[in-house]
C-alpha cells in the first residue's frame, strides 16, 4: 500500500482513469484501444477525456473484431508500444482467446526472450438488471490456467489504480479483471503514482474464527458478511487476493492455519475456477499438518438467468456467504442461524439498461 493516503476519495472508475491518464502522460508508448473507448460514455467513465488530451492516435475506437484487435495489440506491443485494450464485457474475450493464449502468453517463451508483449487487457464482468447469460460471465480462471499471463482483480479504488499502473509498466501481458458493480464504489486513492505488487493478497479485515477469501466484487460482499457474522459471534478474517496469477496462497494458508476454516467466494463458477485453485493451494501447503474445513461459493452452476428473482439467487450474497461461514464454523449440527439483512448498495442501486 502506498504510504501517502491523504484521504482523497475516488470511485473505482475514476481510479482506473487516473492511472491510465498518468501513465499515458509518463510514457508516450501507452495507448488505449477498444470499442467505445472514445465515446460519450467513455467505458463507464474510465476513458472519458483521454482522446481530448492525447489525441485519436492514442485513444481510439475499433471495429467489432475482438480477435484481430487483440492480435493488433500484440503486434504493436512486439514493436515496443504498450497498448491497453478494453472489453466492455468479459463475455466477449471468448472471441480472442486464441490471440491471448496462443500468442500473447507464449511469445516470450516460444522465442526464448526474443520478444515480449507488454499489453494490458481490461475485462469487465457484467452483472444485474437482466444482463442475462451472455453479459455476466467471468473468465479469470481461464487466464489463471495459462503460464505466461498475469491476472489481477483489484477490489478497491486504491488497488485498481495501483494494479493498473503495475500492469501498464509490466513487460508481460496482464489481464485486469474489473467488476461492473465496483466502478461506482468509492475509496481513498493517493494522488501520486504507486504500483501494487503481484502476488500479495490483502487482509481486508482480520479475524480469528474463519478465513473468507473474496474475489473482486465478492470481497465487498464478504466484508458485509463479516459484519453479519458478528451477530453469531463469529469473527471472520476477510482476504482479498488482489492478484490472482501469481496468487498469494501463502497469506491465505497462514490465515487458515490460524482459523482452521476456509470459505472461498468467487465471482464466477466453481468447477475448475479460482476457488478450486485457492482451496487446492492451501491444502497442498498445510493440509498434511493442519486439518481444516473448507467450502467454495460462487455463481450457481447454471447460466445466468435474466429475471431478477432468479438472478438474485444466482449470486452469492452477504447473507448466503455469512450462512455458509456459520455452517463451516459451527458445524452442520449447529442450530439453524439466519443472517440479517444488509443491502449491497452497488447492486441495489444499479439501474438498467447497462
Amino acid at each position, binding site marked *: 500500500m502506498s504510504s501517502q493516503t491523504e484521504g482523497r476519495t475516488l470511485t473505482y472508475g475514476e481510479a482506473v482513469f487516473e492511472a491510465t491518464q498518468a501513465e499515458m502522460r509518463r510514457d508516450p508508448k501507452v495507448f488505449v484501444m477498444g*470499442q*467505445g473507448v472514445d*465515446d*460519450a*460514455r467513455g467505458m463507464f467513465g474510465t476513458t472519458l477525456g483521454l482522446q481530448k488530451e492525447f489525441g485519436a492516435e492514442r485513444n481510439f*475506437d*475499433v*471495429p*467489432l*473484431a*475482438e*480477435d*484481430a484487435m487483440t492480435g493488433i495489440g500484440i503486434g504493436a506491443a512486439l514493436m515496443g508500444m504498450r497498448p491497453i485494450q478494453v472489453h466492455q464485457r468479459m*463475455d*466477449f474475450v471468448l*472471441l480472442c482467446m486464441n490471440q491471448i493464449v496462443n500468442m500473447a502468453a507464449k511469445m516470450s517463451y516460444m522465442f526464448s526472450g526474443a520478444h515480449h508483449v507488454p499489453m494490458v487487457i481490461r475485462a469487465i464482468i457484467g452483472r444485474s*438488471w*437482466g*444482463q*442475462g*447469460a*451472455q*453479459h455476466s460471465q467471468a473468465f479469470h480462471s481461464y487466464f489463471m490456467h495459462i503460464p505466461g499471463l498475469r491476472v489481477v482483480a483489484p477490489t478497491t479504488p486504491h488497488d485498481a489504480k495501483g494494479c493498473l499502473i503495475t500492469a501498464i509498466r509490466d513487460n508481460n501481458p496482464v489481464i485486469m479483471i474489473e467488476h461492473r458493480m465496483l466502478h461506482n464504489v468509492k475509496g481513498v486513492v493517493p494522488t501520486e503514482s504507486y504500483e501494487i505488487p503481484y502476488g500479495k493478497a490483502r487482509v481486508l479485515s482480520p479475524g480469528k474464527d474463519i478465513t473468507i477469501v473474496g474475489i473482486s466484487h465478492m470481497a465487498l460482499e464478504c466484508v458485509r458478511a463479516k459484519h453479519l457474522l458478528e451477530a453469531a459471534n463469529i469473527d471472520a478474517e476477510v482476504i482479498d487476493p488482489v492478484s490472482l496469477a501469481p496468487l498469494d496462497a501463502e497469506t491465505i494458508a497462514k490465515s487458515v492455519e490460524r482459523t482452521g476454516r476456509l470459505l472461498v467466494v468467487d465471482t464466477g463458477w466453481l468447477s475448475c475456477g479460482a476457488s478450486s485453485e485457492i482451496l487446492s493451494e492451501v491444502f497442498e501447503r498445510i493440509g498434511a499438518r493442519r486439518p481444516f474445513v473448507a467450502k467454495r461459493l460462487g455463481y*450457481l*452452476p*447454471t*447460466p445466468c*438467468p*435474466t*429475471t*431478477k*428473482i*432468479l438472478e438474485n*439467487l*444466482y449470486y452469492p450474497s452477504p447473507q448466503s456467504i455469512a450462512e455458509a461461514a456459520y455452517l463451516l464454523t459451527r458445524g452442520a449440527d449447529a442450530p439453524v442461524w439466519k443472517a440479517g439483512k444488509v443491502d449491497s448498495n452497488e447492486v441495489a442501486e444499479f*439501474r*438498467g*439498461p*447497462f
Partner: protein
Amino acid sequence: MEERTNNPAARLYRSMYLIRRVEEEIIRLYPTDKIKSPVHLSIGQEAVSAAVCDHLEKTDILFGTYRGHALYLAKGGDVPRMMAELYGKVDGCARGKAGSMHLVDPSVGMMGTSAVVATGISNAVGAALALKMQKSKSIVVCFFGEGSTDEGAWHESMNFASLKKLPILFVCENNFFAIYSHVKDRLAGPGLLARSEAYGIPAEHIEDHVPMELHERAGAAVAAVRRGEGPRFLECMTYRWRDHVGPTEDRVHKYRPDAELDAKIEGDNLKIVGKLLPDALRKSIEATEEKRIADAIAFAEASTFPEDREIYDHVFAN
C-alpha cells in the same frame, strides 16, 4: 387476428404499427422498473423486419440479434409471451430466463436472438445447411446490424453459405451506428455490396424511406432463395431513433447531428405506409393492434415470477 389481406401496405402497416406501439409501451413502462432488462429498441427500423417477414412462411426460420423485438413481432411471435418475458415472468416465451435480448418462439420459426454481436449468423447458416440436408422447402433469414459485418464470424459465414449454396437470406440493417461508433469509422473500402459479391453472393442496397420498394425487393430476394438459387444479401438502410440501449433519446451524447435524427423522424416509414391506406382501414388496424397490446401487457402483469427451484431447470436438455 383477422385473415391475411391481399393488400401488402395493409399488412406492412399492421406489422409496423404493432412494433412501434409495443415499443412505445415499453418506453412508457420502463420507468416503473417492471422491465428489469436492457432493451434495444427498433423504433425507426420497423420497416425492415416487417417488409422482409411479410414474405415468410411460419415454417421459415429466423435468427436475429438483441435488437429483436421488431423481428419477433414481425414473424408472428406471441405478443403476450413477449411482454411477460420482458417482465421476467413465468409465462414469458422463455419463462423469464431470456429477457428482451433473447426472444424466442420456435412455433413461428423465430429461433432466438443473441446478445453477442454476430454470433447468430453462423447459427443461421447452420440451420440453412440443415434445411438443405433435410431437403426442406423452407428458407432461413438472418438479421444483423452493420456492426456484425466487422466480425470475422460474418466473413466465415458468408463464405460457407455461398460455398454450399445454402437457402439463406442475409439482411443487414445498416443504421450507421454500432452503439455510438459510425460505420465509416469501422468499415473500410467500397461497402457491403462489394464485400458480399466478393463471396459470390448477390447483394442489393435499399435506401431508407421507401418501404414499399423495400417490401417488393425483399420479396424478390426471398423468392430467389426459395427457388434454390443460393444465398442473397440485402443491405437495408435504416435509422435508430432512440439510444442504443434503453428507452430514452440520446441527443445529449452528440454523436450524431440532431438534424439527421430529425429528418429521419420526419420521414417516418410508418406514416409513409399509413398514408397508402384508407382512413378506416388504418384505424381498424390500429384498434385491433391496440387491443392486442393492451391484452399482452395485462397478461404480463397478471403472470407470476418463476419459483426459485426453476433456476436449475434446463441447464441440460433431456
